[in-house]
């Protein structure tokens, strides 16, 4: 009597064996995580500067910095006119420019940088750009003006140099116009590329 009652009330016990399913899922997860970690590709972004767009028709003063790459070991750093621009610690900034660059506030500044190797040149470029960035911490854009003979690998190398300070090196300590401090590795992350021959 009791047995019959029990049989009526209890549902048949069904066991789903999910051990094999768990095995597969865990294997897939480890495989995907492993593969993602070792993806060998990366990207560097830039945009192009259409010919003639450099001649800005707007009268509003605009910060411009460009790096003319004539040879892998010889570049010229150009800074546009400074009149009317907001500069952090301007006295210190102009003192640096007057000591290391040629030119003036109205026409802009430029400096020729040369070195025996690309790596040596990269250090010089980055040091100069860091000083410029200290004066203009809010500016993000730089223009690379590249000569015909420069290889794609060199273009990528220069893009890397103007973009950020590498890991393991001292980051930038910037102070903005309202005295707020910021630590960053980015120098000029927005890069436009144009040809030296098009610039005239």
């Amino acid at each position, binding site marked *: 009597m009791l047995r019959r009652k029990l049989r009526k009330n209890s549902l048949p016990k069904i066991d789903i064996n*999910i051990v094999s*399913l*768990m095995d597969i*899922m*865990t294997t*897939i*997860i480890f495989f*995907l*995580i492993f*593969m*993602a970690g070792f*993806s*060998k*590709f*990366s*990207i*560097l*972004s*830039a*945009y*192009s500067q*259409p*010919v003639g767009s450099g001649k800005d028709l707007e009268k509003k003063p605009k910060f411009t910095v460009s790096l003319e790459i004539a040879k892998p070991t010889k570049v010229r750093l150009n800074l546009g006119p400074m009149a009317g621009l907001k500069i952090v610690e301007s006295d210190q900034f102009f003192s640096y420019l007057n000591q290391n660059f040629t030119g003036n506030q109205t026409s802009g500044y430029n400096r020729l940088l040369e070195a025996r190797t690309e*790596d040596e040149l*990269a*250090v010089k470029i*980055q040091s100069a750009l860091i000083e410029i960035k200290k004066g203009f911490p809010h500016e993000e854009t730089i223009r690379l003006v*590249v*000569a*015909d*003979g*420069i*290889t*794609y*690998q060199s*273009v*990528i*190398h220069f*893009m*890397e*140099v103007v*973009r*950020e300070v*590498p*890991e*393991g*090196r001292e980051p930038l300590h910037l102070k903005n116009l309202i005295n707020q401090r910021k630590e960053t590795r980015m120098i000029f992350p927005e890069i436009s*590329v*144009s*040809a030296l*021959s*098009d610039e005239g």
Partner: protein
Amino acid sequence: MIARPKRKLQEHELNLTSLMDVLTVLIFFLVQAFTITTKSIQVPKNIRLPVSRVQSVPRELVSLSISSDEIRGNGALLVSFKNYHFAKNDLASDGRTITHVAEFLKKEFKNSLQTYEDLKAEDRPTGKLMIEADKDIPFSVLKYIFNTATVSGYADYQFLINKKKNSTAL
């Protein structure tokens, strides 16, 4: 001797439902992420990409592959060249635009804009182009690519590179 009643072992049930939930979501996420990023990037064998320490995730975009003697658009051959010079009949009248590459890019750009049909022309986004070029290609070739891409609506570029280990050296 009194026989002790045998103690029944207690049945412990492991509730795997929540664990399964998490695993399933994780798998879908990883598979989805893979489909968008690395799966679709296949660099032609004759292209040796430059190296860089910059770490960014590549996205699937319209791609131009530039080797030492040809340009391919999404894998299809568009134009061939010798000694890094283009034949005159491959260039448009301005002497700076590669005709077949421009045709390909304009077609791709038109297709991509279908999503933004309702927007005004000036509000529509510019195209993004992935460039997979051999590291030894001179800029004299790349400038034709940039000019052609710009006139075809692509002004933003993503250069595909091989990751280099982080180092303090520049």
